[in-house]
């Protein structure tokens, strides 16, 4: 591993180290990540495990990390390779507290509430959820995507252990990235991984007829997440759901399996390019004349928001936030 540690851009090393040591990419405490569920008192055991992976909750912090990293290398806006990641971290003092402090309370609240809203929606539709609370670990999707194969092998075992403690048969994932890695990667790494993997969208779709109608004067366009559309092949479900709550949908020119990536995946290493890609996707979506962009992936949500112009009137929301409105009314 020595070679890798010196060869890789520091931001990757930070993410890797945090996942392996702290169970999430930003070294946040489990109790913080699970704080959204305090009032719900979800049981630890059950048939259906509600899995957040901390992904929505951590979003504003990841953005803050990216801007800190970008800021750190501001002169050249490039990251220094091979400089010994730990040195840089020590020198600049990037740590969870510093990043935590720079996140706005309103962002923290919004993203925390997404997991809460998702749980409420599923409960209202009649699903009985259990949740691992502060023991829940991030899926490790980034370890797998970034190529940390050795770390992923041992990390997956730890995660699987926690999942098994729930005694669940089915896991419902909020993030398509978690669903993908559980569905396609875990069975190869963990000998006994007996779970049925579903997504939030999938479960809602099955009981979509129970969703309350949503009254809105906004026109809606769907941004398909790459993972959801291509790997998990979930596209029509989103349209069906919106149809059953009585909301007409516009289609971007690139939609369903032809969807355009939000640029999120290379945000950590190439924030500038990622931003340009996101801006272009937002433009494609706005070309439809819609004023509300809906997506169903935490990284798409965050990347697209980052790609929005300052004086844009379009709103970007997660499907979870949008559907929750029906229950509030």
């Amino acid at each position, binding site marked *: 591993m020595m*070679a*890798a540690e010196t*060869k*890789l*851009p520091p931001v990757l090393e930070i993410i890797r180290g945090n996942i392996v040591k702290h169970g999430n990419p930003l070294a946040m405490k489990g109790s913080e990540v699970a704080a959204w569920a305090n009032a719900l008192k979800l049981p630890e055991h059950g048939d259906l495990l509600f899995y957040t992976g901390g992904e929505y909750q951590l979003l504003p912090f990841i953005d803050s990390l990216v801007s800190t990293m970008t800021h750190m290398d501001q002169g*050249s*806006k*490039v*990251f*220094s*390779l*091979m*400089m010994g990641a730990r040195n840089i971290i020590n020198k600049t003092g990037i740590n969870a507290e510093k990043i935590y402090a720079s996140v706005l309370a309103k962002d923290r609240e919004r993203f925390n509430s997404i997991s809460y809203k998702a749980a409420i929606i599923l409960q209202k539709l009649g699903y009985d959820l259990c949740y691992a609370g502060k023991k829940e670990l991030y899926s490790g999707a980034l370890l*797998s*995507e*970034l*190529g*940390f*194969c*050795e770390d992923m092998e041992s990390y997956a075992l730890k995660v699987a252990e926690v999942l098994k403690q729930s005694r669940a048969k089915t896991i419902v994932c909020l993030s398509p990235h978690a669903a993908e890695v559980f569905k396609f990667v875990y069975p190869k790494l963990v000998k006994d991984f007996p779970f049925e993997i579903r997504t939030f969208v999938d479960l809602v779709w099955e009981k979509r007829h129970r969703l309350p109608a949503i009254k809105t004067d906004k026109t809606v366009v769907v941004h398909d997440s*790459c993972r959801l559309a*291509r*790997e998990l092949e979930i596209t029509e479900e989103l349209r069906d759901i919106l149809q059953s709550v009585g909301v007409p949908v516009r289609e971007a020119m690139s939609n369903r*399996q*032809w*969807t*355009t*990536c939000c*640029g*999120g*995946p*290379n945000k950590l*290493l*190439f924030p*500038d*390019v990622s931003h*340009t*890609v996101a801006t*272009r*996707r937002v433009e494609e979506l706005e070309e439809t004349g819609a004023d509300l962009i809906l997506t169903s992936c935490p990284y798409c949500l965050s990347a697209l928001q980052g790609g929005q112009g300052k004086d844009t009137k379009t709103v970007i929301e997660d499907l979870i936030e949008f559907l929750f409105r029906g229950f509030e009314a």
Partner: protein
Amino acid sequence: MADLQKEFNDYTKNLNKASKDENIKKAITRAVKSYRETTAETLDRFPHTPEMAEEVRGIKSNSIAHNSELLKQAMDSVERNKGKAFYAKDKQEALEMTAKIIGTGKTIVKGKSMLGEELSLREYLEEKGNEVWETDLGEFILQLNHEKPMHILSPSIHVPREKVAELFTKFFNKEVPPDIAQEVAVVRDFLREKYFTADVGISGANVVAADTGAMVIIENEGNVRLSTGAPPVHIVLVGIEKIVPTFQEAMKVTEVTWRYAQYGVPGYVNIISGPSKTGDIEKVTTYGAHGPKEFYVIFVDNGRSDMAKEEKFSEALHCLRCGGCMYECPVFQVTAGHFGHVYMSGIGAVWTAFVAGGLEKAAPLVFTCLRCGRCVERCPMKINVPSMIQKLRERVVCG
């Protein structure tokens, strides 16, 4: 070690700059739109294409699995046709073989070839004291501008007509207005003279049929016809992955290639199997009638057979270089060929790792890829680039 850091940094700087370049944005947006429209239209007009693409996938995977036999057969066929066939195991060998055939002080006209880029062929031959002319209009523009291609099929995709006019005015030493027809005309006049005075013509090939030794070259401009027909010597440099068993199969690969390469129906498909010959006087076969008297084929490996041996990567050799994936790549759409090192975009990262620079050159590309997978939707060969990218990341990280 320090060099790698510099490379990554230079790459990133370049990429960032490209992503803010209005010329690239304008040019690629236009190109993407036209690619999608033309392709949709021609697939509509020739609806058998997707099925044929699937057949071609079978042909390619069978050909890669039997590559060494096919190579031998193709070389024998070329020799039987009175050409000369060579196998170059790496870049250096390929360059030396070519230089040995050509010598020094010659004039060379060259068709567009990604393999040529991979080998830095023009630069090498120039160093050996030859005059080399790129005859593809896009490549010609880049040659004058000392730039590398920004797309495998439309190399100068990022250069607008105003810039071309500026370049030509300087080079031809006369006022060339920013009018595309006039720009094309000055190059036509200039190169016409070169074709008929050149000593050697060089081309690549899109497909090779092992049974007949036929080289198939798709083009629109007609520059390949002239480069391979007018000079007394024709040298083909072609990657060993381009060989398929039979002529009939080669035709299928050709049709699928051009259809996804936005050619609709290409202006020309050249099929060249040997030197020019005649038996018209007393049935005595004489070589070099109207076309080249000498015909050489250099089959280049340069990492391809290593790639073929790797289960996770051999599929990348099915690539037809149609360029379709690049138009669909969200990163390529904003950076053009800056997301590349000789070979471009996701598939290019894989090729870079094996044949054009190795894992070090590929590393920045491998981490630039979004792994979004839209390229796979477009790819007629359904090459799973995102999964290869993930495997390459593992190699960078875990060694």
